[in-house]
């Protein structure tokens, strides 16, 4: 169970999140959708504290942290919460100086202090799961974007996080390569991995997400089951946004938007 309560995030004078409250059930997949600058990426990054909320409470499982304006939270507390999460980035951000398997092993050995043998075994199993075991010893620069993203998913899953956070995981990819990433994420979802993803890829959101949160201008406009939000949204603002997403998807031949 993850809960974000009254999250506010301010960059200078710019209030990007205006008191957002969202609860995410264990084993569920939640898509954060909304226009660019609406706050979905910032909200996602507030979950693993790559952005520190100006105020509000972040709870993941038994770990919880409360934030207040101009009160500095100790780095150790931030790390403790962050260790409950794994993250997949839009631009993959694999470590370019480490091979695919070394990327996956890194967190286990450096952070969790596993033995190299045990870490390697787990890393191989994860690469197998994302269909990248055959490229275990490849350098990231020699992999396609889709392959890099699948390795990045394995890296994020390595420490068995309580939640997998995906920030626009398919946006940097061509439609075919995006598909292989969607497939992997879909498989993880069906196995009960808790996921939160910021995305404007309608195919990704509609195929995998069970819950959808629509964010615009830093507030939650509407949230609910994916079928309802995509099929029959309540708010006018949501309807307009879903309509543009669908148009974009059609124009790009079912590709990403």
């Amino acid at each position, binding site marked *: 169970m993850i809960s974000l309560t009254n999250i506010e995030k301010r960059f200078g004078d710019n209030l990007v999140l205006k008191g957002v409250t969202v609860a995410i059930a264990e084993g569920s997949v939640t898509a954060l959708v909304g226009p660019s600058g609406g706050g979905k990426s910032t909200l996602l990054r507030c979950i693993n504290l790559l952005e520190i909320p100006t105020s509000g409470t972040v709870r993941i499982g038994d770990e919880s942290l409360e934030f207040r304006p101009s009160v500095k939270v100790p*780095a150790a507390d931030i790390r403790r919460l962050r260790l409950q999460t794994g993250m997949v980035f839009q*631009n993959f951000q694999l470590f370019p100086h480490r091979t695919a398997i070394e990327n996956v092993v890194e*967190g286990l050995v450096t952070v969790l202090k596993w033995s190299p043998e045990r870490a390697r075994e787990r890393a191989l199993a994860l690469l197998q799961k994302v269909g990248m075991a055959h490229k275990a010893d490849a*350098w990231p620069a020699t992999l396609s*974007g889709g392959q890099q993203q699948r390795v990045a998913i394995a890296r994020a899953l390595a420490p068995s996080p309580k939640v997998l956070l995906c920030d626009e995981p398919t946006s940097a990819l*061509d439609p075919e390569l995006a598909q292989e990433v969607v497939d992997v994420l879909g498989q993880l979802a069906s196995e009960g991995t808790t996921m939160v993803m910021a995305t404007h890829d309608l195919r990704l959101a509609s195929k995998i997400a069970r819950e959808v949160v629509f964010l615009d201008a830093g507030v939650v406009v509407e949230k609910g089951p994916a079928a309802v939000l995509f099929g029959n949204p309540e708010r006018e603002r949501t309807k307009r946004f879903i309509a543009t997403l669908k148009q974009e998807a059609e124009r790009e031949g079912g590709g990403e938007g």
Partner: protein
Amino acid sequence: MLHWLQLMLESLPSLLWAALIFTVPLTLLSFVLGLTVGLGAALGRLFGPRPLVALVRFYVWIFRGTPLLVQLFLIFYGLPSVGILLDAFTAALIGFTLNIGAYTSEIIRAAIGSVPKGQWEAAYSIGMTWSQAMRRTILPQAGRVAVPPLSNTFISLVKDTSLAAAITVPEMFQAAQRIVATTYEPLILYVEAAILYLAMSSVLSALQTRLEERLNRYGGFLEARS
């Protein structure tokens, strides 16, 4: 011609000996120490509190903005006036170290800054602390960027050690000067010294190429290749 060869061969052992016990140790020691100072200064400048940032900027300003020869003279001939008496080799070592530290701090600062912010975030996202991220993710990538300019500095340093002759360090160039004083053959001896410096620089260039090949084995910083 025969005279040239003869004199060069006769003087070669003295020059090589001076290189072996002064030029090479002075170069290696001051580069390693200078690099350490440079790394510390770069980290201070990038991540330190405001007074430390100001201190580093002041240090770099002074040591990049004044001639190395003047720095060496100040340390060796100037400091005794305030009661700090150093032997010539130590004075040279301190001078070169501080000079190299100033130049390399700027190189290292730029190299660390060249690593994309996303790499920090990726490192943090798997739970690394700041120092783990620095050691395991940022510095290895910054190192690759820094090798060519650091090699430049290193090669300059080999040649600049000849300045230590001016503060009485009996390194290779001073050995050549001493032989000139007895043989009156400046052209031959200084050509010989130049050839030996060229040889040392060439060895370093070759090592640089090897090191760059090794660091480039992972192919590039391409992040998104979709």
